[in-house]
């Protein structure tokens, strides 16, 4: 009896682990972006090594790219910081030198690496997927074992298509009940992180299970798996099912024809066997859940939107509240907002923008609030524009931007000014994450849009017909 994680692990062991040495684990798909790869390519150059499997690399530009229109590298020199522009140029050169196809500014596919992979059908059940990015956990939504690695390991994978790994422990999170309407996948994962804590998943791979998970769409499942790392788990995964296969069918890099049928047969054997043992198991009933917002400086400091900020005498807790300029015992509802960011690998997909548009349609962004809506990829942008969602954003007074990581990471020109409060659909509310001194409240696209139109933290359920 094996769990989903154990099955994928076993199928990718090139050399088994011993007391003295970790396992050599084969990597099926290596995602690459400009920020965590330059030093790895330098290593290959210094050692005179080629990239072993350029065909297993999927490369793009997302983190340090501007979200104003850029069609050529020349444009980049004008809009970007010199170091960011240099980094992008370096990525172009590295991919060219090592024979890796780059989905760059000229590509219709370009997007945040964790939005693009699933969109193209490159993300597949049963696969091992890595990237120099902690939100690689996103791809676990397809029943893949997907986790973030450092730049040294990026070099290892480029050179050998393998990693040295110890078998991870497993944590099953059973989500029972039915999510109330207007409570989203983002609220669900925030609730989970609040329950187990920001270190609660350390050393483990999470498998999300139960009726509440089965009912989610693929985009919602990606939102859940995406933030597994915020609970300390390198990977989060969900067993593939018909929802997964329907999403994947016909995507350009997914198997086609007879290969699809064969893959489907294989994928159907992946879910954890009944009675599979996990190292840890917890259950959460989601049926009474409410929309969630963070109040502190990590994603575990989270509360129901209509609650009050908890009280805790711990100095670090008080320091976090002081940084956020919020008070223990007071509500978050009504706290004035300066910036609203809708986008990122957590919530930058079509369904997220549709959700935001439900609130924005026919309303105006409150005075002195800046609303930035950043599609997760060129494909999301095209689809949203085909539905007129860009017009909804613009008509409300928001900015409709080009795809990229944008304000989630604040290293591309999009930042929240010091001291200002941002309601953001991204994944990290760490001090200064969105800009030096910026204060971040994490929330769903519905809650973010509600904040944009009311100018304060607001319950989206009250704005929905």
């Amino acid at each position, binding site marked *: 009896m094996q769990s989903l994680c154990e099955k994928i692990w076993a199928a990718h062991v090139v050399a088994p682990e011993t007391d003295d040495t970790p396992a050599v684990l084969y990597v099926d798909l290596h995602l690459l972006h400009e920020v965590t790869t330059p030093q790895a390519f330098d290593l290959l150059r210094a050692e005179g090594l080629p990239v072993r499997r350029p065909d297993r690399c999927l490369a793009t530009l997302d983190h340090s790219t501007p979200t104003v229109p850029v069609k050529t590298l020349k444009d980049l020199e004008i809009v970007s910081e010199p170091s960011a522009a240099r980094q992008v140029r370096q990525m172009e050169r590295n991919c060219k030198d090592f024979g890796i196809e780059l989905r760059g500014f000229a590509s219709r596919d370009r997007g945040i690496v964790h939005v693009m992979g699933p969109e193209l059908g490159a993300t597949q059940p049963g696969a091992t997927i890595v990237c120099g990015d902690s939100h690689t956990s996103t791809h676990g939504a397809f029943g893949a074992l997907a986790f973030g690695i*450092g730049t040294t390991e990026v070099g290892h994978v480029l050179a050998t298509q393998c990693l*040295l790994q110890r078998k991870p422990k497993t944590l099953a999170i059973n989500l029972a009940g039915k999510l109330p309407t207007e409570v989203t996948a983002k609220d669900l994962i925030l609730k989970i992180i609040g329950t187990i804590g920001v270190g609660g998943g350390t050393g483990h791979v999470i498998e999300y299970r139960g009726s509440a998970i089965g009912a989610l769409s693929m985009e919602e499942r990606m939102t859940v798996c995406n933030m597994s790392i915020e609970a300390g788990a390198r990977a989060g995964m969900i067993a593939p099912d018909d929802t997964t296969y329907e999403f994947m069918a016909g995507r350009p890099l997914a198997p086609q024809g007879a290969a699809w049928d064969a893959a489907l047969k294989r994928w159907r054997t992946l879910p954890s066997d009944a009675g599979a043992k996990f190292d840890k198991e917890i259950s959460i009933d989601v049926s009474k859940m409410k929309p969630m917002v963070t109040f502190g400086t990590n994603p575990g400091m989270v509360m129901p939107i209509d609650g009050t900020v908890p009280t805790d005498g711990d100095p670090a807790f008080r320091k976090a509240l002081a940084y956020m300029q919020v008070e223990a015992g007071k509500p978050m509802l009504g706290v004035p907002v300066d910036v609203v960011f809708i986008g990122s690998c957590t919530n930058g997909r079509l369904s997220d923008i549709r959700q935001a548009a439900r609130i924005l349609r026919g309303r105006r962004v409150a005075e002195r609030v800046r609303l930035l809506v950043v599609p997760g990829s060129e494909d999301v942008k095209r689809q949203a524009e085909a539905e007129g969602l860009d017009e909804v954003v613009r008509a409300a007074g928001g900015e409709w931007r080009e795809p990229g990581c944008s304000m989630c990471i604040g*290293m591309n020109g999009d930042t929240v000014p010091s001291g200002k409060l941002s309601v953001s659909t991204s994944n990290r509310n760490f001090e200064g994450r969105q800009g030096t001194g910026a204060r971040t409240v994490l929330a769903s696209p519905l809650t973010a849009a509600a904040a944009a139109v009311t100018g304060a933290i607001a319950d989206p359920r009250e704005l929905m017909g």
Partner: protein
Amino acid sequence: MERIKEIRSRTVVLPNDDIDTDQIIPARFLTTTTKQGLGKNLFNDWRYGKDGSERPEFVLNKPESRGAAVLVAGNNFGCGSSREHAPWALLDFGIRAVVSTEIADIFRSNSLKNGLLPVIVDAETHRWLLQHPGADVRVDLDTTTLEAGGKRVQFPIDRFSRYCLMNGVDQLGFLLERSDAIARYEQAHA
């Protein structure tokens, strides 16, 4: 890579829990394409004021902290992003070991590949270290022990990582030696 056998140093203490990699090295410094020179931006937004001058009250800026090579931090150090720039910045600054009760997975893995020792200790030892900033400690990789305040405690470390650190062995070399096995795997799964 340099061989590591032991580290003797005074400690510098940052007691906060959950210190994330965005605090260790903020994202705006990640547009670099090299590993060098990140030490000046280590804990940038805690270390410097708005005008770029050092905040005298921040522990790393205090005269007694200069030259300390062992950082004692609160629980769950290094959570957040996978940026290897975090251990690069710590090493460039002069930190050679980080001590906590829990160290985040990716940060720990990145540290081990760069010769920064992640030292995980029990709650009691941790409490003592937090209460005695500037204490003289000895981290011995051979016996996998930390010595502080006249006591010696074991710390866990993966045997392979320890071997690589003590012998200056690069892990890529180990993987490259398995090229035949990798090729066989690829053939069997083509």
